[in-house]
């Protein structure tokens, strides 16, 4: 079935080689940044930065500890961006990646507003701007390669494989070392499941992960869109009926009036 990546925060050392590999493979330019007082850089993702290691400062048994997590497109199983895209430029492929086709995009940015993880970014500084985001290295996957970030990761914090296998692997890791992990695989159920899965030593809220329900964010919109054909037919029929009725009533009253005039009998 679909591919996925398992990110194990206990194995990540925050070296950011994945960020560099991502920039190299996608030929993304460097971005000038200012020191923000943390060791993370750049401070946020944008159209030229598809992935980023976030540093969380955690107090663990009175000791200071850094816990890292990698941010990029989660490649949802039920992606809001795909549902939202007016021209179908975004597509969830059965093998995992949510891909973007800039030959269709008109730049409406609904995907940015709809994404529950705040991932698609826009080229605000360009006169002909596109949406940019992590591609899950769909091009590399097509050639039988792993994503660039996974290939470069020196500690094995990133594992690429079948999503189902990765889920089993994650459960095994939690079972083997219950003290090491919180009993939660982020991405297994969130927003209906994501291709990227996370293991963490601390509760995910502490790492800045949004606590999403397991319901895909698209359900209500999909329900509303399903009502469109019946509403279309219903309103058209109702309006035609009302027109017919009012017209008939007017004709009847006119006939009545002329009858009265003809006979000249007042009521």
């Amino acid at each position, binding site marked *: 079935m679909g591919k996925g990546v398992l990110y194990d925060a206990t194995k990540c050392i925050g070296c950011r080689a994945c960020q560099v590999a991502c920039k190299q493979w996608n030929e993304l330019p460097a971005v000038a940044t200012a020191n923000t007082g943390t060791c993370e850089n750049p401070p*946020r*993702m*944008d*159209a030229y930065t598809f992935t980023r290691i976030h540093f969380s400062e955690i107090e663990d048994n009175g000791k200071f500890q850094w816990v890292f997590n990698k941010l990029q497109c989660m490649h949802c199983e039920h992606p*809001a961006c795909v*549902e*939202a*895209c*007016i*021209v*179908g*430029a975004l597509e969830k492929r059965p093998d995992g990646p949510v891909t973007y086709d800039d030959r*269709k*995009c*008109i*730049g*409406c*940015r*609904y995907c*940015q*507003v*709809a994404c*529950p993880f*705040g991932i698609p*970014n*826009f*080229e*605000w*500084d*360009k*006169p*002909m*701007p*596109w*949406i940019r985001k992590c591609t899950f290295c769909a091009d590399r996957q097509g050639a039988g390669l792993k994503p660039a970030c996974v290939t470069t990761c020196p500690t094995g914090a990133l594992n690429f494989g079948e999503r189902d296998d990765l889920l089993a692997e994650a459960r095994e890791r939690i079972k083997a070392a219950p003290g090491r992990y919180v009993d939660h695989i982020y991405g297994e159920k969130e927003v209906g499941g994501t291709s990227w899965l996370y293991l963490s030593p601390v509760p995910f809220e502490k790492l*800045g992960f*949004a606590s*999403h329900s397991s319901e895909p*964010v*698209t359900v*209500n*919109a*999909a*329900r*509303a*869109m399903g*009502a*469109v054909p019946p*509403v*279309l037919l219903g*309103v*058209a029929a109702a*309006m*035609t009926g*009302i*027109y017919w009725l*009012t*017209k008939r*009533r*007017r004709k009847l009253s006119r006939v009545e009036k002329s009858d009265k005039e003809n006979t000249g009998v007042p009521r």
Partner: protein
Amino acid sequence: MIQQQKRTFPLGISVLTIVVILGLIPMIIRYINGLGAVSNLSDGRPWGFWISFDLYCGVALAAGGFTLAGWVYLFNREKYHAVARPAVLTAFLGYTLVILALLVDLGQPWYIWHAMIYWNIHSPLFEVAICVMTYTAVLALEFSPAVFEGLSKSNLPVIRRFNWRIPWRIIRTIQIPLVIAGVVLSTLHQSSLGSMLLMMPETLHPLWYTPILPILFLNSAIAVGPAMVIFETTLSSRVFGHRLPLDILSGLGKAIPYILGLYLLLKLMDLMARGEIGLIFTAYPQNLLWWGEMIIGVILPVILFSMPGVRQSRRGVFWSAVLVVLGLILNRFNVSMLALAMRPGFTYFPHWMEVAISAGLIADALLVIWLAYRLLPVASHEEATGTT
């Protein structure tokens, strides 16, 4: 100083022309330096003033077109015939403005036609796009008899020579199907603007996020339709000097408490059904926005329009209609901007150039309305004098 007696352009027109030019300059900058140069939009707030004001408010405020056309031609209320044509004209201009604004807001406006060939039928925005495109054409056709009437009375013999009665008659024969299409398309896209926000259950505040958002959007658009017609016709009668009978204005006002009453009921029942009714007291500061839109746009107008004394005064009807319009604007800004959470770490306040572009577009429309009233039989109908 000797004043030239021949004043062809009133002062208002010169002001509007300046506003148009001031709006054009940022537009040019946008196409050279990108959206970031003329707006404060960012990845954290990708939709800002243009979407909230030009799209969300613009489409809703143009609802007078379908409500009045439906009321007059389908429900057969001939009394309101005189306001149907101005309502259709302003609706047509409103939708044209929406499309023009999108040509600035879209990243790739030259590919706007992609919406017609690459269909994503799951996207509420796709439905809005198709309906807006079709409905703008429908409105143009609905208004075209006025243009044909104007052309047949043109000062130029060349234009007069063509028999404008022919296209006029063609449009008149398909008028009822056009009005029905207008009502259907409006129902669909007014509600779909609400469906668009259903995609954001996590970011839209629970005071506003509800599965019935599309119904609430349609309901509030129907309520603001007559209010906007009162607002526009009052102003245009000031400028162009043909007064409408008060009877028509108060008749329109009489419908508003029923429509807004239903809206209030739906809003409150929905909050109670979802168990979130307490938020109207606890969710500070968003609850202030909620109370603002409910008091200004719903509760006060329901009370005012229910009072016969208010309905019998032009001033009373006008200002009550202004309240409905203001409340609707606040509502659309709430759902599409103020109560919609940004990505963490971002702030947004509209750049003056964003506002200038929108203001320039509105000035465009006002200039066209001014021209239309001078050149075309907008306020007076041929058919009203007995062709029907």
